[in-house]
Each structure stands twice: as structure tokens, then as C-alpha cells.
């Protein structure tokens, strides 16, 4: 019988000796080269963290493989990062380069530190979820292949944190990312009255719609959707399988940019939509990779050193962002939901 509520593994048992010994005593760090962090303790101890890109969706073999490397180079310990990279924790400086070589041999990229593009936080997509408007892993692979050079180098103005969410539930928490790739539906739900009748609580379903587009349909013992009011958020579908929202013809991807969460220099910011729709073109999503590269490179060419995407755009102004990137501005980018008012330009001072 399982023990209930024993809680997660005690982290203390998962820490390598060098960390146990220098816990809370780190004095400073350096970033000697892409993917390598050197943390120095008050005791003088040096810890090298080697950051390795991961597809996140991995097999047993992958985990066992990195375990082997950890056993060989890191006293049998490793960690994962908040962005799903693997970090090898090397206490012996002499093992750094051999480890990097071993990783290279396995095709595992070392990078993602400092002014680089780190791994893309992402979600399930067509691999495992029921509401996606796009795939997750596939888009991530296509984009990271395309931007690979920026993972393994540190030549950007600042760190670049990308996220992908395959539907508006936004499990990728893309809403505060430098670049957010977001799966979007574009047509109202098609109602399967049978399914609705079977197991759906009509009042909850009606209440679930943020725009009030759903009304009860007593005749059918189901509901009816006012298409003009529907903004395809899919919240009703999350509540009720009978509100089929997936539409292969019209689902696709929106791009938002300029979010951040760190408090350094400027306050956290939301990502803002700059491209309302790009088609799903598997397996390589060329429209998406191109759009992302354009944004990254325009930023790289124009931002001051140390300036995150959002800081750069807020400095130059969004009107200038559209000029520089050549992205078309349309009414779709103007907010019309409940907090729209704060986005309207209540000033006569702007750039042409």
C-alpha cells in the first residue's frame, strides 16, 4: 500500500557534496563561456555548471544517458533548470572540458546562459493534450534549430526567454515572455448537443464564457453560441467536451513579444501581440521560424547592450517596433477586452 502524503523527495539528499558544503556560501559567479557558469564560494570552492539543451519530452534512454554522464563527471548528481535545461554540476575544473566533449559527441548542445536564447518553455501540443491549436514540441524544435546559433553563443543584447503555449490556457505561461508563441483558435465552438446533454451542467457552461456568448437552449437542452461575441478562447471547451473548438483549417499561431518577469531595471511586463495569426505548417512551421528570427534579429541589431526585448521596445516605442521589423499593424492588435483602456494612446506625443 502506498504511503499517502509523504511529500516530495527531500532535496537535501539530492544535492552534490560541493553544494552541501557551500550551501548559502556562494560569493559570486562568472560565465566563462556559453553554457558554463562558474560559482565561487566563500570557502574558495569552485562549482562549474554546464547547461545543456533538452527536448524536454524525453525517453528513458535520455535520462539514463545523462545519469551516466553525471556519474562520470559530477559525482552522480545533476539538476534541471526552470527552463527545462539539464545542468551538470562539476566540482572538478579538470572535468569541464571532457564533459563538454562528451556532450558534443552525443549531440547535446551546451549553451543557454547569459545573453543567449535559452530553451523554450513549452507544453504538450498534439502529443498529449485535447485542446491544442498547434503542436508544441514540433514548433519548438523548428524554432530552436533555426536559432541554434543563439543558444550556443552569447552575442545577443541580453537574455532572450521564449515560451510556447499550444492554446489559450497558456500552460507555457507565455504571457510574460520576450517572445511568446501561442496556439490560437479562430472559429466559434461547434456544439455537439448530444454530448452537452449527456454530462454538462448548463449553468456552469454558460457562466464559463468570458464574453457572455453562450446562452441556454432549452429546446435542445443544450446551449447556443452567439458567434459574433465569441473570441474563440476555448474556455467553454475546457468545461464541456461538447463545445468542439479545434478547427484544423483555421487554428494556428499568434506571436506576442516584449514580456519579462525579472524586476531588474524595469518592472515585469506582459507580452504583447504583434502577429495575430500564422498558419500551422508542419513539420517546420516556416512562417513562424521566419517571424521569430526577424524579431530576434531586429532586436539584436537595434537594442542597447543589456536591454531586454520589452525594454528596447518601450524605449523606442511600439510604433517604431513595427517600422523596424516591417510587421504590419492591424486592428487585430488593438485590445478590445476588459483592460483595453490602459493600452489606448492617450497622448498626442508619438512617432510617425
Amino acid at each position: 500500500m502506498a504511503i499517502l502524503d509523504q511529500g516530495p523527495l527531500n532535496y537535501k539528499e539530492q544535492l552534490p557534496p560541493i553544494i552541501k558544503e557551500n550551501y548559502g556560501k556562494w560569493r559570486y559567479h562568472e560565465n566563462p563561456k556559453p553554457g558554463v557558469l562558474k560559482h565561487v564560494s566563500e570557502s574558495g570552492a569552485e562549482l562549474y555548471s554546464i547547461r545543456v539543451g533538452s527536448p524536454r519530452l524525453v525517453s528513458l534512454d535520455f535520462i539514463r544517458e545523462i545519469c551516466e554522464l553525471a556519474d562520470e563527471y559530477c559525482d552522480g548528481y545533476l539538476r534541471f533548470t526552470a527552463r527545462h535545461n539539464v545542468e551538470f554540476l562539476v566540482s572538478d575544473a579538470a572535468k569541464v572540458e571532457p564533459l563538454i566533449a562528451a556532450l558534443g559527441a552525443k549531440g547535446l548542445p551546451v549553451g543557454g546562459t547569459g545573453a543567449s536564447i535559452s530553451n523554450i518553455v513549452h507544453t504538450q501540443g498534439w502529443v498529449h493534450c485535447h485542446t491544442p491549436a498547434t503542436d508544441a514540441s514540433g514548433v519548438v524544435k523548428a524554432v530552436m534549430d533555426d536559432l541554434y546559433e543563439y543558444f550556443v553563443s552569447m552575442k545577443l543584447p541580453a537574455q532572450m526567454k521564449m515560451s510556447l503555449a499550444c492554446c489559450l490556457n497558456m500552460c507555457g505561461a507565455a504571457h510574460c515572455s520576450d517572445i511568446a508563441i501561442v496556439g490560437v483558435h479562430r472559429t466559434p465552438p461547434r456544439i455537439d448537443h448530444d454530448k452537452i446533454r449527456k454530462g454538462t451542467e448548463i449553468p456552469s457552461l454558460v457562466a464559463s464564457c468570458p464574453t457572455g456568448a453562450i446562452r441556454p437552449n432549452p429546446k435542445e437542452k443544450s446551449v447556443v453560441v452567439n458567434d459574433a461575441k465569441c473570441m474563440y478562447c476555448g474556455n467553454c471547451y475546457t468545461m464541456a467536451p461538447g463545445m468542439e473548438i479545434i478547427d484544423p483549417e483555421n487554428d494556428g499561431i499568434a506571436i506576442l513579444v516584449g514580456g519579462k518577469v525579472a524586476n531588474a531595471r524595469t518592472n515585469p511586463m506582459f507580452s504583447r501581440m504583434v502577429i495575430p495569426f500564422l498558419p500551422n505548417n508542419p513539420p517546420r512551421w516556416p512562417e513562424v521560424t521566419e517571424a521569430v528570427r526577424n524579431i530576434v534579429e531586429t532586436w539584436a541589431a537595434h537594442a542597447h547592450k543589456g536591454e531586454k526585448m520589452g525594454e528596447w521596445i518601450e524605449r523606442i516605442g511600439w510604433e517604431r517596433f513595427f517600422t523596424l521589423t516591417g510587421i504590419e499593424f492591424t486592428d487585430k492588435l488593438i485590445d478590445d477586452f476588459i483592460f483595453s483602456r490602459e493600452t489606448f494612446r492617450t497622448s498626442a506625443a508619438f512617432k510617425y
Partner: protein
Amino acid sequence: MAEKRTPQLDELEKGQWPSFVTEIKKAAVKNEASKELLHLLERSYEEKRGHWKHGGIVGVKGYGGGVIGRYTDLPEEYPNLAAFHTVRINSPSGWFYNTKSLRTICDIWEKRGSGLMNFHGATGDAILLGTTTDQLQPIFDDLSEEGFDLGGSGSDLRSPSCCVGPGRCEHACYDTLEACYNITNQYQDELHRPMWPYKFKIKFSGCANDCTASIARSDCAVIGTWRDTLTIDQEAVKAYVAEGLNIQAVVCDRCPTKAMKFNAETQELSVIAEECTRCMHCINRMPKAIAPGKERGATILLGGKSTIVQSAFMGWVIVPFMKMEAESDFQEFKDMIERIWEWWDENGKTRERIGETIYRLGMTNFLTSVGLPAVPQMVYRPRANPYVFWPEDEIKK
């Protein structure tokens, strides 16, 4: 099942970034379900749509969460995906593992599931991706035996997570790993048995760099900070100057409050203590010379969440500074969070995150009910409208 080709997915084995397709293929060698997944996914690539149904209710005994039910809508063609559920394992603080722990997970999962995993899920759990209904309880039993426990799902406390903190980072203003572990253990009931209006996430970041993105990704963000003045090592400052760092341009000019002053002649760096907002910028640029103050603790922010339904919210300050050292400090945090949950539980609508509840009912209502004093740190700026609600006892009768 007959061998089929997967030309689209094969395409994604090319390129320099490690390929998830390769991973699925590796799993497919050992596991039928993974093999079918490969082909179902190829089909999704052709049809540009997923083939998964709404999850039904599945789970393990004694828990309400931790498992996500998943079924393909093409069970005849992909019988091994008829049920393909997810198991969430609550990961250890800071995502640290010894290889033994990882191998244990692998061994259990090899026996009882698809062999595919996410390291990690977006909330921070280790995710076992794809198994059948009858394997759920055995998996849990096996995991439990080895000291693992499940993470949250549904309307419960989600597995809290934290940054690497004092484990490896010189900026950590409190022990994120311990705080996360301690608080997670306290709320095992809330984590495993959904009973709230909706989900509730907690994330711990050791400083305002917020490496867990807690302000965006958690209902409750615990962000390390300090109450006194940051400390400056003047010798180290001089060393940076010698290395050629343009302190004025890179550090001082970009300090948001212009609190950091560099005297180019004396090469001395000083801070106007009361002007510093502890944003971390100067420390980030000069970690050898500048460090957080001595009186450390955390700022608590509440209300973060993503877009659905009322728009994305970022967490906002509800406690500017709280000590986070002794068990008694954690207790203070727990007392507060319990009052908050109680209020939310009473006032929240179904599927309403706490930020949305507060937005609907007003900060004053919330603050008064949970007994938090109003301070200017809670707002960027005061209200622009004069629509104050006056309590009866402040009004003349």
C-alpha cells in the same frame, strides 16, 4: 500494428537541436504505446489537429489529483493509446537529483508506462507521459515505496517550485529550497485533494531576478529581498574598474531610481539606501562587489496567473517584507496563506483564480478580511476614481 512511415516527423530529426522525435522513436523501440504515439502524431501533422479526447476522471486511491486522464479519439486504430494518462511526480526542491533517484523513476516507468517523460512539466513536476488506467495505482504504489509522491492537479494546491537559490546562487535572500520543501510538506492534504474554487500555485524565487517567473506563473510569489542596504565591497569595485567595466554607464545610469552613485575620481561606489528598490540590476552587473543587505527576507505577491479567463494577471505585493529564516517565519507565512485560502474558499466562484476573486471583490475587502495592513507598496499608484466604500463605523449617523 503495421509499420507506417513518418516522413513529417522524420524531418524533425534533422537540425542541431535535440529532437523529441528521436526520443519518441527511442521509446517506440521498447513500447507499443509509444510506437502508436509516433504514428498518431504523424497523423496530427498531416491533419493539423490533435487526436485526444477530454480526459475522464482517473486517479489513485486516497488522492483527488496527480493524474491527468487522457484518451485518444481513435481508439480502434490506436488501441494502445485508448488510455494514455499522465502521472505527475512532485519534483525535489530546485530540481536537484542524484542519479539513483532518476534511475528509480526510469525503472518504474519502464515497467509500467510508455517510457516517455517530461523533465519537467511547466509547473515543475516530473511528468510520466502515457500509461493505462490499470497501471495508475501500481505506479503510485511503486513510486511511493521509493519515497516519491505525486504532484497537484485539478482545483488544488499545485506542486510548489523554487529557484536553485542558496544551492548555487550568491543572490539568494532566503533558503528557497528549504522554504519550498517545508511548505510543500505542510500542505500535502491541500496538494492531493482538490477542494478549492480552482488551482493555486506557489513559487519561490530567491531574489528579484525571479528565476522561477513566480510573478507571472504563480498565484503566490515569494520573492527574496532585504530590508536594510545592499553591501558594497570597495576593493572589488576597483577590481571591476581595472577590468574595464564602465560602471557609470552599465550600472549607475541604468539603476531605475538613480540610487547608485559612482565617484570616478575616488573610484568609490555608494548607494542612496532609501532610494534603492532592490531591483538587483547593479548586483547582477557586479556580483563580486555588490550583494544584498544583511536583513533578508521576502516580498509576497498574490494573484499571478495566465490569460484564461479574465486576462493574464501578474502577482501584486501584499506583504512588502516578511522574514523567511526560522521555522517561526515559515509559520507566519503559513498562517497568512491559510487565511487567504479561507477567504478565497468562501468568496471565490468555481474556476476563479484568487487574483480574479480579489479583482472582483476589491482589495479592501480582501485585505480587511485576511487582516493585512494597507501600505503604499501594494500599488504603483493610488486610485484615479473617488469611488471609496465607506464602512458604517466611519460614518456619522
